[in-house]
């Protein structure tokens, strides 16, 4: 497991390749990349600041990965999340899962993102023409996370 919280940008392709390079028993790698958009909730977004809870953030992400590893036979998992100032087009988050066969990698990647969105202590503040605004949580994210409990 690799969990990283950093201000620096990253190369999603390099992260994906590194996951596979870990071992030859890996037959499937799934990667999710989240990017900063230039538009949200009816307004242009010029930039974004990601606040987090140092100390808890890393623990919360590790706990989510541990739960994914208990549910699926994963051979490698990486979660990388950026914090600080970001501009549209930049990658925010990378979740990569590796397994022998595709089903585990697909499901685990989906699960980790759903849990990350609802349980990891990050908060987005967007810069718009009308000033800065905090992004509010979405019910759809809560519903997406809840389906793993069923």
């Amino acid at each position, binding site marked *: 497991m690799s969990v990283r919280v950093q201000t620096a940008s990253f190369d999603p392709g390099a992260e994906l390749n590194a996951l596979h390079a870990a071992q030859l028993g890996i037959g499937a790698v799934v990667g999710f990349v989240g990017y900063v958009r230039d538009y949200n909730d009816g307004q242009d977004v010029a930039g974004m600041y990601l606040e987090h*809870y140092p*100390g*808890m953030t890393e623990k919360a992400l590790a706990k989510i990965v541990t739960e994914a590893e208990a549910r699926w036979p994963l051979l490698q998992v990486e979660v990388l999340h950026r914090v600080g100032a970001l501009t549209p087009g930049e990658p925010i988050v990378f979740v990569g899962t590796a397994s022998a066969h595709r089903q585990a990698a697909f499901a685990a990647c989906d699960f980790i*993102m759903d849990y990350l969105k609802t349980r990891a*202590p990050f908060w987005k503040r967007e810069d718009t023409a009308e000033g800065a605004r*905090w992004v509010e949580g979405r019910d759809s994210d809560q519903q997406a996370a809840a389906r793993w409990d069923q």
Partner: protein
Amino acid sequence: MIRLQYFARYREALGTDGEQLDWQDGFATLAALRDHLLARGGAWAVLAERNLMCARNQELCGLDEPLEDGDEVAFFPTVTGG
């Protein structure tokens, strides 16, 4: 003593990122601690929001979570990472 931390919109509304409170026997749960803060009035009403989230010793928990002297507690709005 309780070490309190506030994040994001709550941090801005309260004008502080945290504080330390002397331990009181009445702090049986996070809910009791929150009631103590709500009693300050004014901006502290933000902690009454329905979507408030909280953590004890850097683990998500509910407001019914028991509290002990020396704990670290955080109150924050719904998380929006990813």
